[in-house]
């Protein structure tokens, strides 16, 4: 049913970004995508564009589309995690295909790790109780915050931002403690704090891994960027330079994905224990004092 764009005053055609419409089409069925994009287009043309101007109207449109994507059926935590894990596996496979010399015994350990994360994402992300829903929600929030802080901090260190980079990275290490304390105190169970740490660890690990790999490929293919590794042997080939940088970030990303996840669980359990003990110490004798797993 879609027709050509209309002219709104003068020769200007008011049209939002086409890629945003395409994105909307990926998360809704064809009929819903047509009616929803029509509603957005109508609002964009009749009130948003005249009020806000082109750039802010485009930003509004993109924000609305992102809102649709996040609320779309089937785009729950489970599918985001599975999609993230699949993207990680594809990235590793692609890197090994490009640089077979990176292949080693670590691949078997990593495969086991991915199977475990995949099992957790596929089978334990449907909340059976309101407490489960709280745990998953807190885990997702702290995971996104922690992963983003880590990425921004490490990039900051590479770009010589100095103390700010260090601060952000340190903060990302403290977040699992806070996540565990938040979950533990909110549900008054140590186990809740540990589980918040587990989900937060997977999510932040995925964000960091994918961010690292994107950065690694940038370093490999745009020589001279700050933070790039230089091969020791001189002279070295372009492939050796690329392999060193991709391999370096691949290693860093995997460490963050798996050791980071374990650190997050341990940190959150400690955080949950400390949080519960602290809150309990301030309570009167009539209130519950028993520590629950």
């Amino acid at each position, binding site marked *: *049913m*879609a027709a050509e764009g209309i002219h709104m005053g003068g020769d200007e055609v008011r049209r939002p970004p086409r890629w945003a419409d395409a994105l909307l089409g990926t998360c809704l069925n064809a009929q*819903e995508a047509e*009616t929803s*994009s029509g509603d957005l287009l109508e*609002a964009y043309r*009749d009130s948003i564009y005249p009020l806000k101007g082109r750039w802010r109207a485009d930003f509004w449109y993109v924000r609305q589309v992102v809102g649709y994507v996040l609320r779309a059926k089937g785009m729950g935590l489970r599918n985001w995690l599975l999609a993230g894990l699949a993207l990680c596996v594809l990235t590793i496979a692609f890197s090994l295909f490009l640089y077979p010399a990176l292949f080693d015994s670590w691949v078997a350990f990593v495969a086991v790790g991915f199977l475990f994360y995949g099992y957790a994402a596929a089978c334990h992300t449907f909340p059976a109780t309101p407490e489960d829903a709280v745990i998953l929600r807190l885990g997702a929030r702290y995971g996104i915050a922690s992963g983003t802080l880590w990425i921004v901090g490490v990039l900051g260190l590479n770009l010589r931002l100095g103390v700010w980079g260090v601060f952000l990275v340190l903060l990302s290490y403290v977040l699992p403690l806070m996540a565990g304390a938040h979950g533990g105190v909110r549900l008054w169970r140590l186990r809740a704090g540990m589980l918040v740490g587990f989900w937060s660890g997977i999510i932040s690990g995925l964000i960091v891994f994918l961010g690292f790999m994107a950065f690694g490929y940038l370093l490999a293919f745009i020589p001279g960027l700050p933070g790039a590794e230089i091969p020791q042997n001189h002279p070295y080939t372009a492939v050796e330079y690329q392999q060193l940088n991709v391999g370096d970030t691949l290693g860093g990303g995997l460490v963050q994905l798996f050791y980071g996840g374990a650190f997050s669980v341990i940190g959150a359990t400690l955080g949950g224990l400390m949080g519960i003990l602290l809150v309990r110490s301030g309570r009167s004798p009539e209130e519950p004092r028993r520590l629950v797993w």
Partner: protein
Amino acid sequence: MAETLGTFEQAVLLAIVRLRDDAYGRGIMREVQERLERDVAAGAIHATLERLEEKGFIRSKLSMGTPIRDGRARRFYRITPSGVEALNDARAAVQNLWQGIRWPLKGSIWVEMK
């Protein structure tokens, strides 16, 4: 008693009631924004309409688009008898909660607890 409605669901259903034959996505969004006096995401309206339709509180049908939306189809919504019942129940529940209390509440009812 019909299924309980949330505040946002009530806002969307009441917008459909008010708009009558003009109740489609864009119109409902504008009406809800005006009544709630805040910005509302189009995705939130869409998800709520979908949920209300699944619960059987509204029905929808497709209709032709207009030039301003490049001819893209519009989906019009209409409230069903069970939707009317759910709205009436929601209103009655709020009235019961407020029964015997003079509105608006005054600050003088606040008594410090010791």
